[in-house]
């Protein structure tokens, strides 16, 4: 994605964010979970898992706010999560009005689609069936979140599988950096569903054991769910209105690995190109990155290629962890949730842990942040997301000059 006549580069500020994950509702609860290294993966209660190998997932806690608002009570869980994350961001920066919205998702309101299928053989009133359809569509959660916040911005909904959330932030970043927009709300969401759960189980990508990213004996992922939303603004515009700047997005890289629909090329070329492009976009060397929030699903294929690519690019000098060991894999929401975790790591100067880690994989040489959060000087973070279809995305998130621990 190089260019001989590069457009002017504007700086991109994060003025607010909101996050919902299995670790909790809101940034404070998630921070607490990350510091504790809490394992939020539990037995699945939402649907029947008697015939799957894997029986656990990370589920987000209930939503007291949504329950308290009758209009939101019946919303799909995906809508509730995206709305809660959007409302948290809006509370942080009430003056932010987005001109544009970019949201990533993989499965929208899939469980409503499942119920619609089941309604073919059961008696359900027509009105209820229409409700299921409306809430199945991926755009419904985005419209519900906009309505709850009083926004009315054009939206692009990216469905690039598990890279969607990072793609959404990356594209929003590029729009502001190039001067096409000043204020963009972006993020991602996905909710647990039986169909997707069964799908990962059928691929034998999910595990019946603990999730152990980058461990020699890793055996697969657990699914998760959640949402995160960010308010991105052109730097000078944010400064001019006195907005609080929490972090800066400085780089975005995207690559497409054409090897196979669900398996990355064993050389790690896809992840490597995404990371290299993100670093080039941020005008940073690998040595300047203080921490990598890895995609780290704990599958043989993902960790094998991502571990190799990180090892080649960064060696063992940059600490790495996968927070999916605590939350599970929230698919289209994962990249955004992990970007929120990255901002929390910068704000609180620590490295989130890679829990359940027992034995290093000899295939690479990485500094894994094993099992316990680690205090550290954190100025710049690279966050990775890779997905089916060979979609790979990486972003660079940086500390705001003058706000760091050493400043």
């Amino acid at each position: 994605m190089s260019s001989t006549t590069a457009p002017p580069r504007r700086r991109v500020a994060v003025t607010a964010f909101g996050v919902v994950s299995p670790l909790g509702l809101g940034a404070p609860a998630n921070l607490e979970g990350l510091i504790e290294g809490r394992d939020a993966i539990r037995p699945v209660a939402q649907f029947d898992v008697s015939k799957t190998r894997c029986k656990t997932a990370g589920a987000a806690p209930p939503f007291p706010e949504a329950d308290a608002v009758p209009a939101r009570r019946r919303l799909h869980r995906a809508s509730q999560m995206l709305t809660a994350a959007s409302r948290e961001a809006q509370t942080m920066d009430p003056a932010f009005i987005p001109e544009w919205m970019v949201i990533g998702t993989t499965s929208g309101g899939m469980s409503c689609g499942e119920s619609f299928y089941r309604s073919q053989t059961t008696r359900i009133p027509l009105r209820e069936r229409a409700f299921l359809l409306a809430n199945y569509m991926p755009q419904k959660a985005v419209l519900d979140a906009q309505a709850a916040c009083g926004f009315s911005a054009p939206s692009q909904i990216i469905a690039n599988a598990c890279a969607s959330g990072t793609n959404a932030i990356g594209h929003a970043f590029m729009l502001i950096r190039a001067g096409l927009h000043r204020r963009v709300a972006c993020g991602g969401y996905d909710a647990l569903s039986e169909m997707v759960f069964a799908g990962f189980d059928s691929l034998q990508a999910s595990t019946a054991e603990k999730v152990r990213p980058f461990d020699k004996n890793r055996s697969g992922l657990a699914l998760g769910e959640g949402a995160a939303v960010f308010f991105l603004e052109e730097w000078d515009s944010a400064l001019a209105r006195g907005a609080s700047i929490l972090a800066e997005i400085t780089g975005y890289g995207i690559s497409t690995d054409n090897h196979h629909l669900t398996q990355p090329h064993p050389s790690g070329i896809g992840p490597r190109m995404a990371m290299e492009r993100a670093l080039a976009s941020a005008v940073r060397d690998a040595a300047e990155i203080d921490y990598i929030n890895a995609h780290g699903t704990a599958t043989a294929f993902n960790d094998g290629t991502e571990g190799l690519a990180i090892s080649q690019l960064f060696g063992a000098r940059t600490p790495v962890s996968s927070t999916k060991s605590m939350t599970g894999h929230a698919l289209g929401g994962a990249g955004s949730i992990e970007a929120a975790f990255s901002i929390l790591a910068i704000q609180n100067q620590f490295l989130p842990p890679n829990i359940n880690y027992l034995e290093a994989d000899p295939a690479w040489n990485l500094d894994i942040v094993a099992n316990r959060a680690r205090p550290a000087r954190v100025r710049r973070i690279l966050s990775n997301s890779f997905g089916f279809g060979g979609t790979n995305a990486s972003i660079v998130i940086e500390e705001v000059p003058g706000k760091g621990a050493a400043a």
Partner: protein
Amino acid sequence: MGWVTPLGADLEGVRRLIESGVQPRLQSVTNPESGKEHRCFRVPPELVAHLGRNPRLRRSSVISYFAIAAALAACEDAGLVLTPETAARTAVIFAVSDGGVVYTRKFYEQVVKQGANAASPLLFAETVYNAPASHLAAQLGIDGASYTLVGDASAAIAALKMGEQLLALRGIDQCVVVACEELDWILCEAYNVWRLARTPLSEGAAAVVLSGGGRCAIEAHPGIPFFRQRDAADALRRAIDELPGCGSFDVIVHGDNGTFIDKAASSALAQEPRIATASAFSTKRSIGETVAASALIDVIFCALQLRQIGAGAGLVPVIGFNHQVSAARITCKPQ
């Protein structure tokens, strides 16, 4: 430009048929649970049969075949030859509303009827929205930007807008934008329940190659979200007003499909002086409702009509079912 429709895949041939109001053969799909039949238009299998030997498509659903066939036709029409060098400067944007609904329904059916342990992983892999974009990127050798956008019919216009954005970022020289849908009985059932199937549902794909040059130009409106159907007319009025260029339109291709959309469009366009002398067309009256693909089919049909009359400006208003209202202005220079 390229397309794969129930009336064929030849640009000029299909244009003429739509202009003449010709319809493809009406077919039906049956809900096996209720026995209920739904009318629909299907793409003749021979239009994509030549892709059957492609190893990436061996296990994929027809949606990927449609997408690749339309995209390859568009690349050929644009004279775009994908070498490793041009592929590195090309992006793929894929727009869809209902996605790989055939395999999604089949996979979940296996989960429900046979148990999750008997469901096929081969089906599941193809259920992700971006599977067609992945196959297309592999076919074209593109290893850079590939995006899949979802939504209602307006997703196709959002994809054109994204293409415009990516070109403005100057990282690419051209962008292949594809919109596509496939049919399944559950989709017909859904649109019927939703009372949005007054026009037969259809399947197919449309594709355009966007770049800095070319005889035709597309200016896509960013879109206006609407929260109630009764807000759609006002949103469309606004979208048309906000389109760049204020001259009159020679051609309008609107999305008549027998639903609230017709009333909203009529209301918004009734007072619109810029379409007073425009020739009006509806592709859906011929080939049915193809949701996201319909919007891009309308854009292509509009451009072809403008080419036919030599030059001018065309309007494609798009009112989605439940997401955004949008519009595109198409201009064509004399040859």
